């Protein structure tokens, strides 16, 4: 390292000096997590885990499980869907490219964050993986649909495959077993796509299949693009599957990056990414049941009534309405995937609960996330602290991979993990 970089690093360290995490502060679990004082540092604490190859290493799962690379060389795999016949669909792509750079910060921060991402260009496609012999490697890897626009959420109901592009929800007639769809999709409804600061459109279907739910992220960190671009952002939509009619069931839910139905209660749950630049341990990302009609606080407040002073004009009447999420996952872990174990899961300690894929932090010096955790449930509610389930994505200060979508397949009793840094889908299965 030459002297100029040392100097820059020293200056950055000085600017972030008061942005240190308090070690041992546990911001996970049910109930109110400890929330430190807000820190408005000149430069937010930042640490980017730059990519390192796996070089023969593998993610690790608890004793009694084996991990294999089901498929490699994908093009930014994000969310996964297991079809009734066991085929696995992977949505590949990256969106948000149209979000204009409004300030010098947008250019600089974009450059810095890109250092923690893959250089591969997003596939804008859905790939089908088939591992019929169950050896943990997909013998068939083929493009099912191409020409999509940053696809993310996937759902399959009653012979229809639903794909949430970054700007529209599409429907494709599909027979399981089919390996190629050439028809253009039918647009079920357009999705908010102006700017698309948070472009991912998460998707799941209700237990009875009559409704589709779409998670739509905010158009900014905390309103710094103006609040007029936040109409129908930071919301969850409920869409009638047959008519396309929609209503907004939750507001102020900053970035609901993945949705899933809890199998015991059939309730809709979401993992949500909270705001940045209030310090390394604010604000915890969360897992919550999506309550119909609820306002989750963004941008005016977080975790209930904790006011964010960066939003003007302030809205005390909205702060008063804000509900508290159900379960904290930790600050800046960037939860991007959730999937419930069903039909007994893996049994034992992993019978009832949710797997959560954590993409990993940038807004804290102590890297956080970069793993898949297990959140135990009892009677349809979280019942304990999160437990590491798949780890090994970090190699010191470098990242070998970054987990995104997760999918539990109850028929085969396997867990699939999309990794958008090493462009791999990992498969975790009980050891034979």
């Amino acid at each position, binding site marked *: 390292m030459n002297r100029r970089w040392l100097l820059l690093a020293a200056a950055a360290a000085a*600017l972030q000096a008061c942005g240190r995490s308090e070690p041992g502060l546990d911001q996970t679990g049910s109930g109110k997590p400890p929330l430190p004082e807000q820190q*408005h540092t*000149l*430069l937010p604490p930042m640490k980017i885990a730059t990519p390192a190859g796996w070089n023969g290493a593998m993610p690790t799962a608890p004793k009694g499980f084996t991990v294999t690379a089901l498929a490699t060389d994908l093009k930014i795999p994000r969310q996964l869907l297991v079809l009734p016949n066991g085929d696995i669909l992977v949505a590949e792509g990256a969106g948000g490219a149209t979000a204009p750079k*409004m*300030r*010098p*910060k947008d250019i*600089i*921060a974009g450059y810095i964050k890109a250092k923690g991402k893959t250089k591969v260009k997003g596939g804008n496609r859905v790939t089908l993986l088939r591992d019929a012999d169950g050896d943990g490697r997909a013998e068939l890897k083929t493009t099912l649909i191409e020409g999509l626009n940053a696809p993310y959420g996937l759902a399959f109901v009653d012979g229809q495959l639903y794909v949430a592009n970054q700007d529209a929800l599409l429907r494709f007639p599909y027979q399981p077993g089919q390996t190629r769809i050439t028809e253009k999709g039918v647009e079920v409804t357009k999705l908010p796509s102006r700017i698309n600061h948070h472009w991912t459109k998460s998707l799941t279907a209700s237990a009875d299949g009559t409704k589709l739910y779409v998670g739509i992220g905010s158009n*900014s*960190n*905390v*309103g*710094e*693009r*103006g609040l007029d671009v936040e109409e129908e952002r930071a919301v969850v939509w409920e869409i009638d599957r047959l008519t396309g009619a929609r209503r907004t069931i939750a507001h102020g839910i900053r970035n609901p990056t993945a949705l899933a139905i809890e199998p015991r209660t059939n309730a809709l749950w979401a993992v949500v990414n909270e705001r940045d*630049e209030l310090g390394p341990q604010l604000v915890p990302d969360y897992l919550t049941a999506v309550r119909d009609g609820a306002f989750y606080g963004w*941008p005016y407040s977080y975790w209930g009534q904790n006011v964010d*002073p*960066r*939003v*003007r*004009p302030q809205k005390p009447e909205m702060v008063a309405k804000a509900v508290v999420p159900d379960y904290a996952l930790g600050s800046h872990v960037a939860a991007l995937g959730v999937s419930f174990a069903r039909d007994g899961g893996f049994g034992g300690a992993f019978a009832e609960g949710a797997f959560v894929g954590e993409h990993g932090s940038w807004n804290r010096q102590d890297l956080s996330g970069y793993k898949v955790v297990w959140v135990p449930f009892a009677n349809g509610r979280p019942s304990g602290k999160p437990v590491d389930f798949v780890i090994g994505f970090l190699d010191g200060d470098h990242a070998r991979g970054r987990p995104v979508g997760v999918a539990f397949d109850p028929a085969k009793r396997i867990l699939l993990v999309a990794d958008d840094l090493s462009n791999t889908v990992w498969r975790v299965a009980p050891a034979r």
Partner: protein
Amino acid sequence: MPASRGIRATPLHPLHAIFLAFALALFSSGLASDVAYLKSAAIQWTNFSAWLIAGGCLFGGLALAWAIVAAVFPGRATRGRALAYLAAVAVMWIAGLVNSFQHSQDAWASVGTVGLVLSIISTLAALIAAVVGYSEQRAEGITR
């Protein structure tokens, strides 16, 4: 350069004078757009401020580098005056740099009280630097 009766009309080199003129205009415009943001909470004003202050730092930085060289090699200028000029430019630029980071925060935090005060400091320091730098001077004008 011959100076008539010991008076030099342009004490700063023209290019140096242009750098300072940009810095003065950009920092003072940044202050105006900061005030507009604080009065309106309309985001576009703080976006303007961020670019204006970044531009002020760019041109102010060039003026600062020139002022440092001029203070080290004052030539026929008086060292005292060269140092006074340097101090004003340095205050302007350092406040501007800190303010650039301040303006990289989100929404209201991008300006707030700290950003406004820093914009005022940069603007006042730029004005002082301009008064010192552009004043007609005796033969011992501050620099060439």
